[in-house]
C-alpha cells in the first residue's frame, strides 16, 4: 500500500521554458486523483516527473509505501502499436511481469496474469494479435500490463481519450475497482470533465499560469476559473461545451 504521495515545490523547465512552477500537492492512499488542464499545461510532464523519467530542476516527489519498495504502474499517453505487431494480448500483458528471472512464468505468475486479464475483461482477447484490437481493447490491455505488477500507484495519461463513452466508463470503472480491491492510488489525466466529476475524489487543475487542487465540485463548478483556464484553447473542444463561453475573465481566485 502507498502511504503517501507528496509533490513539493516542483519546478520543471525545458530549454529555459518554465513548464511546472512551484507545484505542491498531496494525494491520499486509495484516492482517484484527476489531473485536468489545457494541452501543453504540463500534465504529462508531471506524471513523468513522478515516475522519475524527467528530473525536475527543483522540488521533490516523495512516494512512501508500507514496507516494500513502491511499485508504480504507468500507461503513457502515446504508444504506437504497429498493426502488424504479431504478439498476442496475453503476451503483451505478460511483458509487465519483470520481477522474475526465469524465462518461463511461475505458477504464481500465471495465476496473476489470468487474474488481471479476467479483471480487465481482456481474457477473450488473450490470443488475438495486439495489432488487431480496437482502441478501447488496447487501452484495457495497456492497463492490464500496468496492473499485472500489482502497483501501489497507477499513473494514467489520457487513457480514455479517443474512446467512445461506453469504453470510457468501462476504463474508469476498472480503475475505480482497482482502487477499491487492491488499494491502488490512481492519478489520471482526463479531458472529459463529466468523467472527472463522476470518478475523481480530488482534482488538480493545471495551467501554465498556475494550478488549483480541490474537490471535483469546487473546481468543475467554478465557471470563472474553468473559463479562464480553458478559454481559447481550440483543441479542447470536448471540454468547452461543459463550460460557458463567456468573455475572458481575469485570473481571479487563482494562486500566482
Amino acid at each position, binding site marked *: 500500500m502507498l502511504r503517501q504521495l507528496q509533490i513539493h515545490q516542483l519546478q520543471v523547465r525545458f530549454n529555459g521554458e518554465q513548464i511546472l512552477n512551484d507545484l505542491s500537492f498531496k494525494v491520499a492512499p486509495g484516492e482517484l486523483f484527476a489531473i485536468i488542464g489545457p494541452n501543453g499545461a504540463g500534465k504529462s510532464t508531471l506524471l513523468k516527473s513522478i515516475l*522519475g523519467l524527467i528530473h525536475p530542476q527543483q522540488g521533490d516527489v516523495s512516494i512512501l509505501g508500507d514496507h516494500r519498495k513502491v511499485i508504480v504502474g504507468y500507461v503513457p499517453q502515446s504508444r504506437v502499436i504497429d498493426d502488424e505487431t*504479431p*504478439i498476442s494480448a496475453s503476451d503483451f500483458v505478460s511483458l509487465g511481469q*519483470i520481477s522474475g528471472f526465469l524465462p518461463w512464468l511461475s505458477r504464481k505468475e500465471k495465476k496473476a496474469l489470468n487474474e488481471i486479464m479476467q479483471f480487465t475483461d481482456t481474457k477473450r482477447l488473450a490470443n488475438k494479435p495486439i495489432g488487431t484490437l480496437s482502441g478501447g481493447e488496447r487501452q484495457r490491455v495497456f492497463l492490464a500490463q500496468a496492473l499485472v505488477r500489482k502497483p501501489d500507484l497507477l499513473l494514467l495519461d489520457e487513457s480514455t481519450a479517443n474512446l467512445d463513452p461506453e469504453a470510457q466508463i468501462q476504463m474508469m470503472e476498472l480503475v475505480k475497482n482497482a482502487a477499491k480491491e487492491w488499494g491502488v492510488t490512481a492519478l489520471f489525466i482526463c479531458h472529459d470533465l463529466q468523467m472527472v466529476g463522476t470518478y475523481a475524489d480530488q482534482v488538480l487543475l493545471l495551467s501554465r499560469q498556475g494550478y488549483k487542487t480541490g474537490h471535483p465540485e469546487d473546481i468543475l463548478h467554478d465557471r470563472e476559473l474553468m473559463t479562464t483556464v480553458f478559454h481559447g484553447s481550440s483543441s479542447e473542444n470536448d471540454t468547452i461545451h461543459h463550460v460557458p463561453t463567456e468573455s475572458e475573465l481575469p485570473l481571479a481566485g487563482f494562486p500566482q
Partner: protein
Amino acid sequence: MFQYDFMQHAFIAGTLIAMMCGVIGVFIIARSLSFIAHTLSHIGFAGAAFSAYAGIDPLLGLLLFTIAGAVGVGQLGVRMYRRDASISVILSLALGLGILFLSLGNIQGNYSRTLLFGSVVGIDMQDIWQIVLITVFVLVVLAVGYRWLKFDSFDQVGAQSAGLPIRLISIGFLLLMAAATSVTVQIVGALLVFALMTVPAAAARFYTQSIFGMILISTLIAVLSVWFGLIAGYYTNAPISFFIVFFNAISYFFGMFFHRVRERRRVLAS
C-alpha cells in the same frame, strides 16, 4: 555421410549456430535491427580479413571488430542507429577495409571466398569448442535477460515506463549480436549471416502469436535449414549456403501464404 569427421563437425557446429541465430533473430526482428545484423557481419568480414593479414586467430579478429562495431553503433544512440544512411556508410567502409586487408596480406582467393560465402570443411575440434563456448554464452545471457529484453524489444515505451535500463539493454544486445555474428561468419560466410539471423525469425512471426512460440519455431526453421543445407550440399556439391537460404525463403513464403489464408478465414468467420 557421417563417416567423415568433417561432416560430424559441420553438423555439430551448424546446429549450435542455427539454434543461436534462431533465438537471437526473434529479437533482431522485433527491434528492427536486421540491417545492423547485416552491417555487423560485414564488419566481421573485415575483422577476419585483418586476422589473416596480421596472422592472428580468426575468431579473435572477428570479435575485436564486431564488438568495436557494436559499441560504435551503440554510440550513435538508440534511435539514430536505425537510420539507414550512417549505417550504410559503416557497412561500405567495413567491406572496403576487408578487401584492403585481403590484398595487403596477399591472401589466396580461396580464403576470401570462404569468408564471404562460408565453408563447412575444415572445422576442427578447436573451432567446435570455440563455437560451443560462444553459443552457450549467448544463449545463457539471452535466457537470463529474457524478460527485460523481451519487454524492451516488443514494447519499448512500456519497458521505459516500467523503469527498465533501456540503454543498457540496447548496448548489451548489440554486444550479443557481435558475439553471435563472429562465430556465424566462420561457417555461413559474411554475406549470409544475415539470412540465418533474420529469415527464420521473420518467418516464425507468420505461424504464431506467442513470443516463446516464435523463438521455438524460429529455432526449428534455422536448424532444419542448416541440416537441409549440409545434406543437400553433401550430395550435390553445390554450396550449402544456397540450400540454407533456399530452405529459409521457402519457410518464409509458405508462412506468408499460411498467414493470409488464416486471416481470410478469420475475416470470413466474423
